[in-house]
């Protein structure tokens, strides 16, 4: 099983790399390979994983840290694999004929890398691995939204999406770490087994909140619902794939993964129900108000994600049932609608309902009218479509609530929001096709110029909607969840309260839609949208103020800010950790009778640096401080440190001399008197605090020094007598390796900077002047 899983995750990444290497004209065709392979590998597994069957695949990662890269296959994960592969295949085929000039190897590479990352999320059993793939989807999705980076709207959408989901990702990481520390494992399967112990611990609220933040930001739940409409600058296939079918469902998927661990928590149902239903309502209202078809779909996606979130909340009472149907329903109709709106944009030349609602397109584009009709009616949850079944599942969950009061409240919200959903669904279809004036046929491309694939792909994606709606018992019981028996739900079998609710909503929706049509404009409430916009603007304003204050562009300011911050941290530690200026505990050995020598070198060097004029002189006397430190190491019998210190000091002295040769001669201090005072006081504060820290550390014996263990282990384990070197190459070898890599990267950075600087100097002879100005900067 492991090779299959590795291939499913790996093939999209491999093809992504290939696409970048091979000729441009191959890239679209090549991109088809990845989802096709994923489907070929995953489809045969589907019948094997009915019900609760779980297959775990152990993969060692960092055994000492309890971190694994375990993979798992179960019904939910495999369902997502099929969704990602199936819709992915359609999206790639659609994209090849839709993108035109926007098509590039980079686009396909980003899309395929996203696909791989998404597959990684749904097949991970290790939460750490899941997090890694989660962040990869954030990065690749920002790349895809901002693909058209010439446009300000695209850049803004990409940055906003990246910030919101990126911050959520950090919360997720913190939550994962907390949960892992609490339970001693990062694996979902093992966490679920300890569910009782975790929920029994009152502190489980902390990781739960953080994990929820991760899920809510990814799935654009209230109050983070604003980023998804902003992300609609992406081309239609990206919106259909990332922002309706897969990525935004990752948050819901995470809730599904957390369900077995946390569902018995007293916070689970109220939080998810409140957040989900609020999102459903708020986003539904935004969708009703929207005039841009794509924005409308974006808001309606957020609304449905709210439904799914609330659904997982209700499952804690009624038990898991039909979540796959709901996710499938939405993924199918919403991605097809996004793709169809892409077609509308091409054919009708606009996606603005203001224009379209006046024109009568229905006679001219019958096939598209049928397809958009199926999609929109599925969105409204009309009978004979899978959407109707999905709504039935949702109602069943809502009316199974814990108490009568809660059922009433949740049901009321659900009914209101569902009515809104019916209204905007009707708005999509009727607004696009049922106007009164003859349409402007030549605003978009003529039908012959548009590839038929732009209608075939959404048509295929909508097929399960119809099949599942007409033969629900067969479709749900055999294809979607084989092994489970589904009562033959369909209105021609029986009528119960849920069906009555559904039909009632449809009636309300139609009335609401007609009423809305007669209103000139809806009142724009100062709703949560504005509040969140305000919050976003506030955050941006604050961060730009912060950047201006801290990143002033001159070294003096950087130094002051960095040092004072570091010293503030130290001061906090000293204040609450206790500090001492005790000298009694100092180990004054005989070798310290030479202590005056380094003391003289260090203090002398420091004072001379301030007093001597000229850069070269200053650099040389600064080296005195370093050599003084080397003497200290010798006195304390640390030959390795002393050697290193001497060599580093010497070589950096040479390098600094080489650099300072290029700098202009020092003139009189250009700083104003107040600035000099500030700098002086800052220096004094830093010096005194660090001095106190050094004194405290020197006079307080550490209760359990790390060194003894290393000393004891050095020879028996690593067979080396030089414990410093043993630590460097053996005990902490991976740290050393990381440092070496950082060194090489730093050298590369220096190389790049010098290249840029020297080409600039050649291009503009005035450049050195600017450097001078920056050096003498005083802002």
């Amino acid at each position, binding site marked *: 099983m492991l090779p299959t899983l590795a291939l499913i995750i790996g093939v999209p990444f491999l093809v992504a790399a290939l696409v970048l290497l091979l000729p441009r004209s191959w890239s679209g065709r090549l991109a088809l390979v990845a989802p096709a392979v994923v489907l070929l590998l995953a489809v045969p597994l589907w019948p094997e994983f009915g019900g609760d069957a779980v297959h775990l695949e152990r993969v060692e990662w960092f*055994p000492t840290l309890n971190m694994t890269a375990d993979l798992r296959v179960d019904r939910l994960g495999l369902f997502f694999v099929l969704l990602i592969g199936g819709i992915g295949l359609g999206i790639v085929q659609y994209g090849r004929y839709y993108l035109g000039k926007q098509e590039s190897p980079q686009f396909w590479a980003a899309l395929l890398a996203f696909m791989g990352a998404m597959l990684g999320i749904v097949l991970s059993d290790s939460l750490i691995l899941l997090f890694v793939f989660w962040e990869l989807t954030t990065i690749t999705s920002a790349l895809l939204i901002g693909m058209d980076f010439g446009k300000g709207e695209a850049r803004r959408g990409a940055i906003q999406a990246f910030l919101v989901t990126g911050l959520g990702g950090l919360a997720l990481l913190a939550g994962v770490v907390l949960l892992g520390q609490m339970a001693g494992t990062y694996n979902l399967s093992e966490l679920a087994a300890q569910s009782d112990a975790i929920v029994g611990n009152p502190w489980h609220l902390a990781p739960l909140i953080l994990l929820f933040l991760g899920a809510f930001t990814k799935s654009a739940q209230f109050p983070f619902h604003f980023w998804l409409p902003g992300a609609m600058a992406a081309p239609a296939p990206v919106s259909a794939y990332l922002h309706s079918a897969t990525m935004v469902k990752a948050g819901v998927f995470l809730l599904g993964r957390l369900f077995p661990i946390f569902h018995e928590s007293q916070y689970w149902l109220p939080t998810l129900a409140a957040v989900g239903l609020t999102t459903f309502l708020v986003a539904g209202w935004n969708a009703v108000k929207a005039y841009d078809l794509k924005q409308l779909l974006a808001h309606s996606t957020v609304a449905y994600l709210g439904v799914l979130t609330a659904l997982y909340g209700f499952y804690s009472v009624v038990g898991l049932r039909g979540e796959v149907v709901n996710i499938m329903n939405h993924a199918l109709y919403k991605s097809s609608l996004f793709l169809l709106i892409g077609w509308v944009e091409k054919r009708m030349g606009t996606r603005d309902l203001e224009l379209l609602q006046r024109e009568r397109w229905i006679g001219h584009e019958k096939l598209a009218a049928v397809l958009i009709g199926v999609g929109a009616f599925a969105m409204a949850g009309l009978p004979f479509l899978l959407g109707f079944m999905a709504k039935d599942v949702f109602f069943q969950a809502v009316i199974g609530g814990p108490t009568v009061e809660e059922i009433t409240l949740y049901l009321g919200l659900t009914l209101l929001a569902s009515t809104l959903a019916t209204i905007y669904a009707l708005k999509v279809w009727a607004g696009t096709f049922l106007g009164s004036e003859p349409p402007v046929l030549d605003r978009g491309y003529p039908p012959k110029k548009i590839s038929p694939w732009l209608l075939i792909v959404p048509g295929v994606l909508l097929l399960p909607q119809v099949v599942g709606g007409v033969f629900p018992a067969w479709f749900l019981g055999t294809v979607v969840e084989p092994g489970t028996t589904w009562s033959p739900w369909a209105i021609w079998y029986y009528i119960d309260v849920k069906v009555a609710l559904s039909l009632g909503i449809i009636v309300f929706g139609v009335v609401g839609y007609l009423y809305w049509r007669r209103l000139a404009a809806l009142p724009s409430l100062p709703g949560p949208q504005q509040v969140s916009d305000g919050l976003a603007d506030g955050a941006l304003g604050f961060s730009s103020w912060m950047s201006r204050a801290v990143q002033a562009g001159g070294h003096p300011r950087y130094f002051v800010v960095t040092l004072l911050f570091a010293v503030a941290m130290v001061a906090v530690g000293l204040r609450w950790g206790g500090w001492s200026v005790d000298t009694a505990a100092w180990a004054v050995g005989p070798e310290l009778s030479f202590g005056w020598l380094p003391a003289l070198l260090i203090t002398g060097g420091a004072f001379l640096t301030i007093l001597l004029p000229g850069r070269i002189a200053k650099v040389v006397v600064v080296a005195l401080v370093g050599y003084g430190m080397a003497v200290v190491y010798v006195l304390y019998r640390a030959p390795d440190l002393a*050697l290193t210190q001497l*060599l*580093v000091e010497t070589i950096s002295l*040479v390098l600094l001399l080489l650099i300072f040769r290029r700098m202009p001669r020092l003139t009189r201090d250009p700083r104003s008197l107040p600035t000099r005072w500030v700098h002086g006081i800052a220096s004094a504060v830093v010096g005194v605090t660090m001095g106190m820290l050094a004194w405290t550390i020197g006079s307080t014996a550490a209760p359990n020094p790390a060194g003894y263990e290393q000393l004891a282990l050095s020879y028996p384990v690593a067979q080396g007598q030089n414990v410093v070197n043993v630590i*460097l*190459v053996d005990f902490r070898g991976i740290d*050393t390796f990381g440092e070496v890599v950082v060194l090489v990267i730093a050298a590369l950075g220096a190389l790049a900077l*010098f290249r840029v600087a020297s080409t600039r100097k050649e291009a503009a002879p005035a450049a050195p002047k600017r450097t001078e100005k920056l050096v003498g900067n005083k802002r």
Partner: protein
Amino acid sequence: MRSLILERVARGLLPVATMFALYLLWRGHNLPGGGFIAGLVTSGALILQAVAFGIKPTRSYLSGFLRLAPWVGVAIALASGLSAMLFGDPFLTQYHAYVGTGESKVHVSTALTFDIGVYLAVIGVTATVANLFAEGVE
């Protein structure tokens, strides 16, 4: 400016310094020394060459080696770490063995390979940066 004394000293010092660096590298596991320190010693000797003979001749002699050194160093360190995984041990597990018997027994360790990688990377990085900073010195 050329100085006869400096040139003689630098010429004589390079092999001595290199031998000393290799000695530090070799004995690092048991006595003060190791890849980082040895790399710095060699870098110091190379910088001395550049000071004595000028940057240009030094560069033309050594650039082929120095350009590759960081990459080869990282590659060696990585390979030494990865090779442990071939035997089913975690990344960067080091192995030890004693070759020979009695007085002539020599301790060999894969840690030395890793340290050689560090050594090369340090030389390469220092030389690259020094070379950049010395741009324009004749």
